[in-house]
């Protein structure tokens, strides 16, 4: 309700400002954001991508964004607002915009749409996402090396495949260092509640975890780890400010190169509907500097990163044994295929917790 009102207000302002501008020959590119650009996480990183785009192609394009747009049917109006304002390429940057984007895309076949992290496409609607599990694998290696207690703490948001595959990649990596590694998983059941994320981090540390990993959006867990003298990994963006002596690394969403590539294609008239699921090799995300660790661990992390980037190391290399002790079918040759990773709904062996809903 409040978000839709804000979005509506933003939309009205936008419509006003655009009708005033008369840059007719510039390509208009629109962005729909889930949170405020100051969330220091998901939306912030998308906006950094937009800023990189403006820096690169600013003389040929004009960008606009709507922030705080709620997911679900309400998003439709905001997306349509951007279409009516003359945007020819529109990025909708959250999973929940999938159906609204598709609906608007079908209505305006001459406008191109790009939807982040979804799986529905149309001749004028692409999807794009990143293989974050590759980064999680590197974090798992570091965590197992750095943990003295052998217990890792993992704060999850919701038990969806993206998060589950991240947990599995972490554990598989950690097991290569320490076969008896334990991971304690706490589901916050929210993407964003700094207080609750902090409480979860406290609970994990109080239960013996000494390396904290998170798949929620605020820097609260990092801050708690810092306060308690433990180690942690950031999420989405650079969080070292909140844990100068705690952050080991962080998975950084770097959307800039992709946005630039797609807008260039649009300008050249070669834009096609595609499904992009890029990893370290295609710069869809990056790892923050490896900090607060000895040189040998740092080197191990860098080597793993290079191997994954070069395609020599696959985090879900077979054989993979599920929690039930049965090997998982290997559909991708010597590793799990993309479909199995995108739909991952099981824990690997070694996690002594139950996946919610299983």
């Amino acid at each position, binding site marked *: *309700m409040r978000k839709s009102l804000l979005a509506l207000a933003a939309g009205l302002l936008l419509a006003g400002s655009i009708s005033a501008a008369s840059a007719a020959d510039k390509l208009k590119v629109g962005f729909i954001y889930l949170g405020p650009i100051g969330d220091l996480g998901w939306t912030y990183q998308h906006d950094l991508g937009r800023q990189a785009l403006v820096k690169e192609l600013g003389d040929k394009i004009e960008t606009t964004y709507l922030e705080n747009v709620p997911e679900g049917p309400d998003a439709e109006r905001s997306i349509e607002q951007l279409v009516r304002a003359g945007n020819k390429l529109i990025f909708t940057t959250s999973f929940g915009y999938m159906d609204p984007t598709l609906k608007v895309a079908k209505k305006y076949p001459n406008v191109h749409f790009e939807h982040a992290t979804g799986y529905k496409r149309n001749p004028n609607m692409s999807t794009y996402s990143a293989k974050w599990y590759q980064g999680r694998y590197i974090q798992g290696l570091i965590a197992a090396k750095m943990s003295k207690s052998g217990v890792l703490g993992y704060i999850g948001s919701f038990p969806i495949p993206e998060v589950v595959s991240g947990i599995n990649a972490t554990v598989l990596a950690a097991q290569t260092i320490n076969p008896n590694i334990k991971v304690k998983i706490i589901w916050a059941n929210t993407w964003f509640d*700094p207080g*609750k994320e902090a409480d979860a981090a406290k*609970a994990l540390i*109080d*239960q013996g975890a000494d390396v904290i990993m998170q798949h929620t959006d605020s*820097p609260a867990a990092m801050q*708690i780890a810092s306060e308690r003298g433990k180690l942690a990994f950031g999420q989405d963006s650079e969080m070292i400010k909140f844990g100068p002596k705690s952050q080991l690394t962080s998975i950084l969403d770097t959307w800039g190169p992709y946005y630039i590539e797609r807008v260039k294609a649009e300008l050249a008239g070669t834009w096609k509907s595609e499904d992009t699921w890029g990893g370290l090799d295609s710069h869809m995300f990056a790892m923050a500097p490896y900090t607060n660790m000895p040189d040998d661990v740092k080197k191990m992390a860098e080597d793993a990163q290079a191997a994954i980037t070069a395609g020599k190391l696959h985090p879900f290399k077979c054989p993979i044994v599920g929690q039930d002790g049965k090997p998982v079918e290997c559909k991708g040759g010597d590793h799990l295929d993309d479909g199995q990773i995108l739909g991952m709904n099981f824990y690997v062996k070694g996690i002594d*917790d139950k996946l*919610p809903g299983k």
Partner: protein
Amino acid sequence: MELVEAIVLAVLAASTPLLIAATGELVVERSGVLNLGVEGMMIVGAACGFAGAWLTGSILIGALFGIVAGTLMSLVFALMALGLAVNQVATGLALTILGVGLSGLIGAGFVGERITPAVHLFIPVLTDIPLIGRVLFGEDGFVYVSITLIIAVWWFLYRTRAGLILRACGDNHVSAHALGYPVLRIRTFAVMFGGACAGLAGAYLPLAYTPFFIPGMTAGRGWIALALVVFSSWRPGRLVVGAYLFGAVTILQLHAQGWGVGIPSQFMSALPYLATVIVLVLLSRARTGGSTAPAALGTVFVPDR
């Protein structure tokens, strides 16, 4: 044993903002006004509290900024709902929408900044007592303020003449008016007190809980505070129990997950709310004759002059 102490400390920290905000709202509702804008006042308190502490380097001044900001927000409510006799539910909801937007605006420049959080009390020997030392003598100032506040409110409501008059306004504003009490002025003070408490509760989050500011960081705690007032059936004693119960369930469900208790986390996250519903049912079944909702709660009062 250390784990028990850690859990109790976490519960106290999680309960404190709920207790402070709910204490304020209890007084507001006891005067007959329903202010649904607690979340909005809290988030503005959080933004201003952080701004104050960041600019001056003092947690105390930050807390004062939060209190003033919450009070100013509540004056907007008082002007609309009491001065102009606008519908209280609509005004309260509007106040929340306003507060969320306003806090984003105020806090925009402070996102990503850090402060040193509120210091915890330390008394040699006493704080070092195993198990209870840190719980009783090692908290931050907000925790002690929250407990002092609720005791003061209890004493005020039940042991002073002014408290009796305030309750009279809440139960029957026409009679209170007929007896010559300035109903609207009393309610305005109550609303201001509620705003001050909400602002302080909001300020607690960036000043002591997670020492940074991010838009939307109250994450619905204002609404929980509102639920707590109903849960307490408008009694200070039950409010304390309710606030700590909410905090305890929140923290314990996190620990239960870490221990691998095989209960779905979604269910455990919903437990505090389930507890509210159950307590409400029990309270209504018991019919102890105790106080239920203030009779004039949420109704508009326009004195005939």
